[in-house]
């Protein structure tokens, strides 16, 4: 794929819905949507750093919603990304506890957010907690679990990458790491109680 090439909405959606990490689709989203979001954030009391942070969160939320089939192309990707970014930014403003006027603006604008976005984004804090829990997992465990459950690599590729003796050793390691992570998540009662909504809403 050519560097810097724009992609159509359909191509981006196909890449995001596939089983492979959607790196090219993510790059295309940055090239095609970032300036729009940056303009919105910086014209609404945000800094350039705010724009970068919010856009990163926006792209993650957008991809998750595509994978959960919550975005089916009824509107353009641009419209949907803008709505997510706006909602994420208004939430951030509220969290920072700025002036009452902006809170009122948040309350007003929250009502006109795209349907389905609000539920998806309210768990942002808990998602960050979940990320921290996974961060604390051992490096090898993270590699194996990511290779299996995010990159969807076949066993032989994982075996080559991680240099274990045979497939059964890798498989046993995978079981052990997954159970260990499950225990770590369940040890955080708030996280465990909300995991369903964090992942699927």
């Amino acid at each position: 794929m050519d560097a810097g090439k724009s992609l159509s909405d359909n191509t981006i959606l196909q890449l995001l819905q596939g089983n492979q990490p959607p790196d090219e689709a993510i790059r295309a989203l940055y090239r095609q949507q970032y300036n729009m979001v940056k303009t919105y954030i910086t014209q609404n009391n945000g800094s350039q750093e705010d724009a970068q942070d919010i856009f990163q969160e926006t792209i993650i939320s957008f991809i998750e919603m595509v994978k959960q089939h919550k975005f089916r192309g009824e509107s353009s990707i641009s419209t949907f990304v803008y709505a997510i970014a706006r909602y994420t930014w208004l939430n951030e403003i509220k969290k920072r506890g700025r002036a009452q006027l902006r809170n009122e603006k948040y309350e007003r604008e929250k009502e006109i957010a795209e349907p389905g976005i609000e539920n998806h984004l309210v768990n942002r804090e808990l998602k960050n907690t979940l990320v921290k829990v996974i961060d604390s997992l051992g490096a090898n465990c993270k590699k194996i679990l990511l290779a299996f459950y995010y990159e969807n690599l076949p066993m032989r590729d994982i075996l080559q990458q991680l240099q274990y003796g045979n497939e059964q050793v890798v498989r046993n390691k995978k079981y052990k790491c997954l159970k260990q992570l499950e225990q770590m998540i369940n040890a955080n009662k708030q996280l465990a109680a909300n995991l369903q909504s964090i992942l699927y809403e």
Partner: protein
Amino acid sequence: MPTNNWQQTCNRFCMSNNFTNEDQLIQYLDGELTAQDAADLNAELARNPVLAAKLESLRQTQASIAMYGLRQTVGGIHQEMMGELGQAGPAPVVGMRQWLHYAARIAAVLVLLAGSLVVYQYYTATPHSLYNTDALPYQWHETRGATISTLETDYNNHEYSKVIQDFKQLPAPNATAYFLTANAALQTAQPAMAISALAALQQQNTAAQTHYYEEDVVYYLALAYLQNNEPAKALPLFETIYAAKDHPYHSYTSRWFMMKLRRLAR
């Protein structure tokens, strides 16, 4: 889900089935079970809610890994793309926009303050405040070679009380005496006396068909009414001056002054 519940369920389940541990639930999720084993587990899951909860917990753990992976990927690409899009350093366009944004805000605040001040001045104006902003003390200049009266000398020396005393001594005051006395009365905040003197001067002019201080009288009589808290009487006089662009006191009757005076005269 509490571990003890799962352990008890597993022990019972494991004793009587082919599914010996959590590994088989993971195999099920990963699609690694045979069709027969998967069917047997499906049947057991339908009967056993604790086992079903355990399966769901493992499924969510796998989904958590996928979510984590996506965040890691986006985080890595984010750094790369910020470099490509030129967002790593300061962005002058955004900086300028931000500056303009602040400048516009400051300007808006200043306009609001100025507007508030105007409204405040409009509604708090009084006849006395109008008098104080508009009053021009009359500068009298003696005619070269003419005889100077005591009253005129006192006026030039700004001894206004003496002017009034001098006036009272005059058996037949002339136009200058009336006029300077009226101004002395204004300077000593005796508007009724000023009005009386200026009215007498107007009568004298009318009777003698003269025009001494004619235009000055209109202006100072208007001021005297303001000082005497009678804006309704001052208004027609100031309207005359304001309408006549060649009137010597026209420049003292601004539009803003007239707006405030009209409100007071209502």
